[in-house]
């Protein structure tokens, strides 16, 4: 008998929600075959079978919340294990298919009256509460405990949101045309973190615009050579990351974070790159960008993008960023005010490159222009610093040679 346990999920991640079991009790499994999908605050991971055998027991059903190290189920070792454990079960006529039938799920079962009442009054969705009753049903005690847990959570924002968000019932006509979908853990985390950032930081945004002509010319000129040598396309992101790193070196406050009454200045440059996926936004972090070449940065980002879409990012790749870049331009955005990725103090918003008439040396010229936005935490970053930072980024992109010369 081998226990299947929740693996270590990375720092600051202590629990996960069972997304989906790929196997039913009674199914044969091979070593390392994916058994179950876990959703965490940050990523979705698959737990592989620790041993070959037969999945004999599922201890945590779909939708249940489990802590790191908790038992998910059991694998009966070896193919013949079922036989020796229950000799009688081997009799084929005597063991109908029922043995392999998964335990009835309680998710469709109607809720107990007390649970319904508490759910309506508190706004706590009973389907998100792990049930201890028969077949995993949610009991009144489970609801009271969940509310107590929510109230005791260190983030007051999330707690009140969970406890008091009561939606007024829709008219019956409309109600049937509504669809209620449970937020994934990732979505819940995004929601909570964004609101936290808004409630905590003194956030505001400064704008500038950048003439992308030179960067575009560089790209056109070296595209094939670059791709041949580095095996990755030369994009814009590499330029922006390198430009930001230089600007952060000049304006350290933008790379800093508040800790109580202290400010922590970070002399390393881990840049988070926001990637939109079907499941929601994730922000993988390119580490030590100051020590990476532009090609290395591009390679890392390309790899992240691919794995983000497959949901294959690791937890530690999503942690420890000091500054973030988000590109609304790929969806066509001309101008936006990004929200900080707390506890970071700055986030750069890239936008769509658009040909616009620009006055240059007394003449009107058509140039490929991009608006830049920097949202920053005014508690750490002064207006002068924020504006200077953004101007530095602009200058570095308009004259990429400055990147090389460190000007």
């Amino acid at each position, binding site marked *: 008998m081998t226990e299947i346990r929740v693996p270590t999920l990375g720092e600051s991640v202590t629990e996960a929600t069972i997304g989906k079991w790929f196997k039913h009790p009674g199914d044969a499994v091979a070593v390392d075959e994916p058994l179950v999908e876990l959703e965490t605050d940050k990523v979705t991971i698959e737990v592989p079978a620790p041993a070959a055998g037969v999945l004999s027991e599922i201890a945590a059903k779909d939708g249940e919340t489990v802590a790191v190290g908790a038992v998910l189920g059991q694998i009966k070792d070896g193919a013949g294990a079922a036989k020796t454990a229950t*000799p*009688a079960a081997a009799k084929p*006529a005597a063991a*109908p298919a029922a*043995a392999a039938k998964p335990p009835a799920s309680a998710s469709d079962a109607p809720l107990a009256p007390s649970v319904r*009442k508490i759910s309506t009054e508190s706004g706590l969705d009973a389907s998100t509460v792990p049930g201890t009753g028969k077949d995993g049903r949610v*009991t*009144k*005690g489970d609801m009271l405990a969940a509310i107590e847990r929510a109230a005791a959570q260190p983030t007051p924002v999330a707690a009140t949101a969970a406890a008091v968000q009561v939606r007024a019932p829709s008219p019956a006509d409309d109600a049937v045309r509504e669809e209620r979908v449970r937020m994934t853990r990732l979505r819940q985390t995004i929601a909570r973190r964004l609101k936290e950032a808004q409630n905590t930081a003194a956030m505001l945004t400064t704008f500038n615009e950048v003439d992308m002509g030179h960067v575009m010319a560089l790209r056109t000129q070296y595209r094939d050579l670059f791709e041949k040598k580095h095996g990755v396309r030369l994009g814009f992101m590499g330029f922006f990351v390198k430009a930001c790193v230089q600007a952060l070196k000049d304006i350290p406050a933008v790379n800093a974070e508040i800790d109580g009454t202290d400010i922590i200045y970070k002399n390393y440059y881990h840049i988070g790159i926001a990637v939109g996926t079907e499941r929601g936004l994730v922000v993988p972090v390119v580490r030590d960008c100051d020590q990476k070449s532009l090609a290395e940065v591009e390679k890392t980002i390309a790899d992240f993008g691919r794995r983000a879409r497959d949901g294959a990012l690791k937890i530690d790749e999503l942690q420890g960023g000091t500054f973030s870049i988000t590109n609304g331009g790929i969806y066509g955005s001309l101008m936006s005010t990004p929200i900080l990725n707390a506890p970071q103090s700055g986030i750069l918003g890239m936008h769509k490159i658009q040909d616009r008439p620009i006055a240059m040396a007394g003449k009107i010229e058509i140039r490929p222009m991009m608006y830049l936005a920097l949202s920053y935490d005014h508690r750490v970053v002064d207006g002068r610093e924020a504006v200077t930072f953004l101007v530095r980024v602009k200058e570095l992109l308009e004259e990429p040679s400055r990147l090389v010369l460190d000007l």
Partner: protein
Amino acid sequence: MAYDLIVIGTGPGGYVCAIRAAQLGLKTAVVEKNATFGGTCLNVGCIPSKALLHASELYEEAGGSFAKMGIKVGKPSVDLAALLAYKAQNVESNVNGVAFLFKKNKIEAFHGAGRIVAPGQVEVKGADGKTQLLETENIVIATGSDVARLPGIDIDEKRVVSSTGALQLAKVPQKLLIVGAGIIGLELGSVWRRLGAEVTVVEFLDHILPGIDGEVSKQFHRMLQKQGLTFKLSSKVTAVDTSGKILKVKVEPAAGGAAETLEADVVLVAIGRVPFTDGLGLEAVGVKKDNRGRVIVDPHLRTNVAGIYAIGDAVAGPMLAHKAEDEGVAAAEIIAGQAGHVNYDVIPNVVYTSPEIASVGKTEEELKQAGLAYNVGKFPFSANARARANLAAEGFVKILADAKTDRVLGVHILGPDAETMIAEAAIAMEFGASSEDIARTCHAHPTLTEAVKEAALAVAKRAINY
């Protein structure tokens, strides 16, 4: 000719196990040493005693509350022979029912004493002394229990009787002395008291109905005294002198001291039951038993020998027919490869007296001992409209719920029709219900069950009618 399963014993555990196994496609046989199927329960236990209880209760009502309700029947009288015939007919139809069910489910029945010769081999020795050997994959021991005896006191089933003899006394004794104030003693004592006997109950402990919630036991004790039963608590019977026409029973204080002699026409020994596991060949095949003769099984009802299972009174746990039935079903399902299971936390217990006692889950004493914080909700039948209309408004419903989670931990009913009402409590507890869940479930009016709902409301101190 091998079977998938042979069940030894056809009491409520054994016959249910066999039927469930047959439903699951197992080729099943049963071995029964008595002439009729059904074991103690159907032949000399639950079924005949309930026939007597029912009849004697109606008899008492006819002579009592009928007049209060304006029904005149004159003074009723009992034709004991006819009453016992009605009881016997009831038993017969039930045991025949089991025989029919065996046929219907194609279960082969062998009459004779079963003995396990080896794992997978059962020898059946018929009344004529002939033996035959049966081969089987699995064996379920469902041999039940026997009357517990008192050292030095011989049961002749005429004047010194066990529960078996007490179900067919030739005439109503003038004086009946019962040893043991447990369920069997009080049920049968009530029967014969209603039929006219003068009943004295001698109990070793200082309270009646051990294991029942203390408050229930105390109040019920007073009710029985009012009905005319005499109790001698903290006392023991040390000898019964059967030499004369009248039995002379020696009763001593449990703690020791001067003995007294009580006279009785009949003595009923009702000090409990002991597992019946002798003569089954268990020692020979190495099946382990505990120090009280009960077969030791794991949570899957398996003994230490592969392919041999045991259920019911032959194993540990409350000696109740419905517990045996559930274990029978679980054992059959486990043998068929399913996940059979018995929830021992939710096994109802009923005392079929008048009024009845029914309980499920923990008693208040058990909760105190476990150090659990709990809330109590109580509602008396004197405040229940239906009970008052029935002129049966004694007793109460008591619900014990976890102080924090409100989960129902125990329900105790002393009152009319408690046997029926306990089912709702058992279902609630099986599903982990809170007292609020019971309180928020609509109960029909006017019914006795409203008392259950009100008791649930009383847990939160919001009973409406009290």
